[in-house]
């Protein structure tokens, strides 16, 4: 499942939904990305997340389809928040339920690497020194090439 939303998410509830009554899944791996206090040297107050409605959902579905073709995934969930976020807020949730931990860990890392380089989201950082768009990072592009 994929959800683009303004509201926060409940990690416990998401875990329960992934685990459910499904006894096939011996491993549930979840990742949460949050708004952190320092980026480079600037003190961050919050973030604005913009996206491309329609393409966002399509591109995330394509990424999920690719992950499902590579690993035996029983259940998955991606949540990405949009709009105004504050320090410490959750931004993104990626969870995968699979029979074994190797597959679940790999699938979550893959989903995050691809989400960061292929899904049309853009972050604007609100700092004590003004607001500015975050630049894409070389390390993220590199991380996505390892798959």
């Amino acid at each position, binding site marked *: 499942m994929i959800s683009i939303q303004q509201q926060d998410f409940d990690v416990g509830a998401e875990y329960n939904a992934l685990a459910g009554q499904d006894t096939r899944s011996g491993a549930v791996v979840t990742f949460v990305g949050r708004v952190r206090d320092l980026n480079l040297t600037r003190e961050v107050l919050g973030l604005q997340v913009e996206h491309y409605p329609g393409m966002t959902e399509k591109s995330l579905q394509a990424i999920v389809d690719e992950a499902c073709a590579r690993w035996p995934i029983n259940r998955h969930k991606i949540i990405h928040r949009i709009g105004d976020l504050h320090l410490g807020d959750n931004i993104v949730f990626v969870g995968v339920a699979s029979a074994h931990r190797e597959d679940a860990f790999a699938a979550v890392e893959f989903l995050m690497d691809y989400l960061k380089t292929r899904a*049309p*989201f*853009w972050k604007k950082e609100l700092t004590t020194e003004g607001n500015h768009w975050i630049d894409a990072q070389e390390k993220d592009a590199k991380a996505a090439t390892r798959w």
Partner: protein
Amino acid sequence: MVTILFFARLREQLSCEKTQLEITAPATIGHVRDLLILKNPHWAEFLNSGSLLVALNQTMAKVSQIVSDGDELAFFPPVTGG
């Protein structure tokens, strides 16, 4: 008619989030970009940026791809979600 969308930093640089162009003959995405610059010369430095990404009908595309009437085109900077 082709609809063209701009996002994030590019949207702010152009002060434009959406425009439309009449395409009378088959054109590549690169041609459409040139037409936009012809109409708005001050967009050149932003639309010619080598790092810009482009999507055709909400799928990542190359500038050599052909645009047809009714298509949705989007230009945007490298993505920074997650």
